């Protein structure tokens, strides 16, 4: 099937849904989201494959249903990678990862998913095919819609294609030092202010972990620094701990220097990400319940809610795409 025809098939489905007043639930591989009774599945997982890739331009264009694992493998053949280290939940798609704006431990050092987005092809809630941005590393023509839609979770448009900046694969080494959480938070902040070529800083189970890329000075062995496996970054990303009965997993976004938070079981992303296991919601402005269904935070201020509601009318005026 040619790319054009597979896209028009999606826009037809959306146009029909407008006529039928049928709610659509967009899904990649449904890594975790079940389809609700009131909605019809609009799956993009068949729309998969690399559209274009020129390693020297540092840009890849890929169909949204492509599995992360496939994409990463193609990049690795050319000694390149996705710079935002997306979590691999099993068969995640690049479109779903984008729609959830999922990013790994390297975020403070190389940037998050949104920092690598250059352009999108999408279909809006009226079934119109569009393109925003492009394949260029620099482009300021028009509003940055393709970055804005990161985190839109299928609520505004069906994303069919993405252009992403890619980076060279790096050789990385991990070191660790045993210490309490509070000290680790302080140390990771101090280290990020030095010229050490860091690509990860975390605290987990009594150890401060840091990861360094490329040529760097030998690490000081006198202060209990030991070289350790890079595997810890996979343990933290995606982070899927075993919880005690009744406990829930909470994802907190904080300033990197935020002191230790009660019930924290891991500190990631250079201190800006805290994972808390507790029965009750931690009292903090930026908390997400990390569970088997999306739990909207609903802590936007009224003025931001109004903007989001307004944008929904712009992209999906008939409210065809289900908000998750």
């Amino acid at each position, binding site marked *: 099937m040619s790319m054009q025809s597979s896209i028009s098939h999606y826009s037809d489905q959306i146009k029909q849904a407008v006529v039928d007043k049928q709610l659509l639930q967009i899904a990649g591989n449904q890594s975790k989201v079940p389809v609700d009774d009131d909605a019809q599945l609009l799956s993009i997982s068949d729309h998969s494959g690399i559209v274009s890739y020129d*390693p*020297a*331009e*540092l840009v890849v264009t890929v169909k949204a249903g492509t599995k992360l694992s496939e994409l990463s493998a193609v990049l690795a053949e050319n*000694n*390149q990678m996705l710079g935002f280290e997306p979590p691999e939940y099993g068969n995640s798609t690049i479109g779903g990862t984008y729609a959830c*704006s999922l990013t790994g431990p390297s975020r403070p050092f190389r*940037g998050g998913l*949104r920092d690598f987005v250059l352009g999108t092809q999408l279909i*809006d809630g009226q079934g*119109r*095919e*569009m*393109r*925003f941005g492009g*394949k*260029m*590393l*620099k*482009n*300021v*023509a*028009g*509003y*940055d*819609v393709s*970055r*804005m839609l990161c*985190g839109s*979770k299928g609520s*505004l448009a069906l994303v069919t294609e993405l252009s992403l900046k890619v980076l*060279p*694969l790096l050789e990385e080494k991990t070191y660790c030092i045993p210490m309490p959480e509070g000290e680790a938070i302080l140390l990771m*902040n*101090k280290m990020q*202010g030095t*010229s050490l*070529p860091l690509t990860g800083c975390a605290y987990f189970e009594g150890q401060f972990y840091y990861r360094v890329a*490329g*040529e*760097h*000075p030998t690490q000081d062995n006198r202060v209990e620094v030991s070289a350790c496996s890079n595997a810890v970054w996979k343990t933290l990303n995606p982070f899927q701990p075993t919880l005690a009965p009744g406990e829930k997993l909470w994802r907190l*976004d*904080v*300033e*990197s*220097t935020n002191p230790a938070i009660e019930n924290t079981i891991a500190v990631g992303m250079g201190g800006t990400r805290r994972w808390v296991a507790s029965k009750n919601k931690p009292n903090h402005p930026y908390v997400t319940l990390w569970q088997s269904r999306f739990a*909207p*935070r609903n*802590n*936007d*201020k009224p*003025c*931001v809610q109004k*903007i*989001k509601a*307004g*944008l929904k*009318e*712009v992209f999906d005026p008939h409210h065809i795409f289900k908000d998750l």
Partner: protein
Amino acid sequence: MDVIQALEEALNKNSILSSEEACRPYECDGLSAYRQKPLAVALPEDIDEVKQVLKICKAHDTPVITRGSGTGLAGGTLPLENSVILGLSKLNKIIHVDPLQRTAIVQPGVRNIQVSDAAAKYNLYYAPDPSSQVACSIGGNVAENSGGVHCLKYGLTVHNVTSLTVLDMNGETIIFDEKDDGIDLLALLNGSEGLLGVIVEIKLKLIPKPEAAQLVMAAFNSVKACADAVTNVLKQGIVPAGLEMMDKFSIQAAEDFAQVGYPVDAAALLLCEVDGSHDQVKVDAKRVADILTENGAYEIRVSQNEKERIELWQGRKNAFPAVGRYSPDYYCMDGTIPRSRLAYVLEEIDHLSEKYGLKVANVFHAGDGNLHPLIMYDANKPGELEETEKFGQEILKLCVDVGGTITGEHGVGVEKLDSMCHQYPEAELEIFHGIKAVFDNSGLLNPGKAIPTLHRCAELSHMHVHNNQLPHPELERF
């Protein structure tokens, strides 16, 4: 009471300018070919005063055009006759630098270079470095999503802003933060050219200064060889901190101006900077030099110390004024193209240059495909400015046709409204107008800039009817 009186009553009288003479500096920005006296200029001293200006203008149905330092090159701050210019130069305080967190909170009128100056004592700096950094404001940088020579490695403004405080046309405060859930409104505000809100406070990322940096200069006999060499550097997994290319004319002009020893006989010159730890830089500079030699560089110079490195940059950094000496006026274009099409695009620009009888110098951010052709003209010659603009538009069309875009970093402003019609079809433009209306229902914030009306695009394509097929047949034509 009219809007000027109301503003004078609310703010310090000296903060409101309305005479012909006092308004003159605000008649244009860096795109000086376009000029218009505004109704008045308001220069508030704090956020409360900004709010008052907005409320008063809203009440009087008066358009507001936010202005930072006025170095924009696309006419983004061009006044309307009935508009108030909201100048933010007095909001120039660095509110807080947090060395441990590596962030700075600043007011919008702070100049780009001041942030790095303030961070220097902690061995930190603010990475985006537009060539205009001594003058341009952080507010303007955010509104344009500005880049600099180091953005291939360290990112554009959007990559280095973590939070924005914005006022809407009602003077209401909205905060956009990287920690927000759901869609990325923070990203949307970057590059929004003053149409979605007035940015009054910005939180920026600071990064540690690299331990070392080295510059490799290489001369080539052809543009293509130079572009191919860049391709091979990037393919080998090196991400240079800076990667700049100049054509023959720019090399000569820069050398005449700065006398830094550029090879004036070269068809193309490449400046490639690597930075990082001492060990990494040593390895990378050697690899870069080797790759460039293998790819046909006939002369290579590697900076041996900081003084030499800075000197070698001087020619490139002064390329615009250097070219400016050859001509009464020059017009700076800002397209992006895939690097693989550079040789073709430069050839086509040569043809256009002959067609219009206007000389062009080209400087190129080779890492990210951002091309700056500088068209030389004389505004005093009748008709020459118009010809120059036509020439410029043809260059931008060329950029779009090879898969690039009409602006890499300078924005659309008023300058590239027509080119936007070429880049974006109607549905996309409708979405843009929809977004604008969500943020600014009154349409009073910088009206008429950045996004062309559908009517304008229809008119324009009307003038370029191909094969008797009229684009946008559904639109009414006046």
